[in-house]
């Protein structure tokens, strides 16, 4: 089943082409990698999928629904959530509240109902808290609920971002360099966690990553970008031998 389909999407920034006629297909319960040198436009692809920037050309479909041009919060609501290359936790909210923000869209009561403490509000607030705590436990963060995120070690901040991305109950998860700044042991843990999450929650995942071991190990399909253009796609073992990919990474001289 096709989860996500990008049809020749492009984005220009002041005449510089960040993403040029890129196309991809994401299948259900698979992990796909987008790789490429720095500045190849990988993060821009995520920003286009999640509606941060409008597309210049192309269309994006999600579970058979055209989501092109929808505002970000609607796209999140439909089931696409993400993490960020440079961690973007809310520094003035404690760990639990960071998770609560992401669940706001799932609870339907209004601020007026909240103020009179309507029974439904109490029930749903309880559910939110329970869910948040269960995700903290899932990522080994249960002790840190009341702490502020930037007092946590870097590796735990990365996990908290993952927990927050799961709070909105996504079908598709976009991970922007989830292994950046992690040590080899943490990367090993991350691989296990991602595979476990994928199975338990029937998730589809797209990863932008530089860490080749991680990408080669867990991705079923890879897309390779260079200067905004797709230069290769295929299974990891084929990509490793692809001439154009090697050239993009090593330069023309090699």
């Amino acid at each position, binding site marked *: 089943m096709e989860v996500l389909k990008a049809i020749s999407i492009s984005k220009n920034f002041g005449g510089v082409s960040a993403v040029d006629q890129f196309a991809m297909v994401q299948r259900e319960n698979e992990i796909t990698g987008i790789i490429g040198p720095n500045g190849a436009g990988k993060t821009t692809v995520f920003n286009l999928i*999640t509606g*941060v920037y409008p597309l210049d050309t192309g269309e994006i479909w999600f579970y058979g629904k055209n989501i092109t041009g929808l*505002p*970000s*919060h609607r796209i*999140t*609501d439909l089931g696409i*959530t*993400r993490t*960020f290359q440079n961690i*973007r936790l*809310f*520094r*003035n*909210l404690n760990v639990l*509240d*960071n998770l*609560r*923000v*992401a669940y*706001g*869209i*799932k*609870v339907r*009561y209004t*601020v007026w109902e*909240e*103020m009179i403490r309507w029974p439904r509000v109490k029930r749903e607030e309880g559910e939110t808290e329970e869910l948040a705590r269960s995700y903290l436990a899932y990522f080994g963060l249960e002790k840190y609920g009341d702490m502020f995120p930037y007092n946590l070690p870097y590796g735990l901040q990365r996990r908290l971002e993952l927990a*927050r991305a799961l709070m*909105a109950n996504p079908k598709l998860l976009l991970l922007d360099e989830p292994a950046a700044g992690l040590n080899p042991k943490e990367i090993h843990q991350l691989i296990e966690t991602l595979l476990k999450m994928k199975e338990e929650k029937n998730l589809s995942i797209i990863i932008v990553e530089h860490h080749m071991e991680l990408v080669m190990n867990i991705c079923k399909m890879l897309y390779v970008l260079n200067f905004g253009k797709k230069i290769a796609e295929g299974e990891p073992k084929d990509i490793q031998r692809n001439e154009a990919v090697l050239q993009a990474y090593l330069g023309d001289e090699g």
Partner: protein
Amino acid sequence: MELNILLQQIFNGISLGGVYALEAVGFGIIFNILKFSNFSHSGVVAISAYFGFFVSRYIYTHFLVTLIITTLAGGLIGVIIEKLIFRPIRLKGAPLTLFLVNSITAAMLVQQFFAATLGDDYYPYPVFMKQTSINIGNLTISKTYTLMLIISGLVLLLLTYVLKRTKVGIALRAASTDIRTPSLMGVNIDFVISVAFFIAGVLGGITGYLLGMTYSVDPFIGSMILKGIIAAIIGGMGSLGGGVIAGLLLGGAECLLIAEIGSSLTQIVIYSGIFVLLLIRPEGIAGKRYIIKA
């Protein structure tokens, strides 16, 4: 100063400070989320002050009822101002300076509108209470000031609850550190900004009503929020709690000084004192060295 006069002035000061605190928070909540100084808040205060006057004078003379109506009207005015003059430029990605310019222009427009249409007269609110003061021992406490204190206190408590506990409050706090990320967490940021302007408008509505009731209404009543803006800055931009504390201190200092040196000299001392204070502590009372933009 005699003890009873001292106590009386402290009480008046804290009551007045409560209104400054409302102003500071109404001003600060927009600064927190959009990072510009929203001088159009004075327009909301002025419109609300006139609105409260006409409603209580000609439609229904009841303190609490007209206060609530004016408060809601203030919230609505806040939302309308956002939609009319801030949302269009925000969606175009305009720089912060443009927000500042629009906010000042809106404030001037409101002021000039009232000066041109209703400017010749002072409009005193109807007298809601038969007695204007209560005596406790040898203290004489003004009922207006007591109401000001109670109302400011209640409103600030309610706002604390909304910001700490409710869904939209948490989203508002999240957006105040990073306005781009909440929408990727499913938060409708346009709605959150509308709510921020509604809250600021509600605070402006109450401020306008209380100021109008205490001093009578003229076209320049909006400029009375200058003290609240100063409180927000002394409190530390970005810290609503700091603004409340600064508002109370400012009100207290003002009333004590008035009793000691008279009202005209007091203003000079206070405004000069603010320069000195910000020289010593540019981040304000509770602020974390925010760079004050626009």
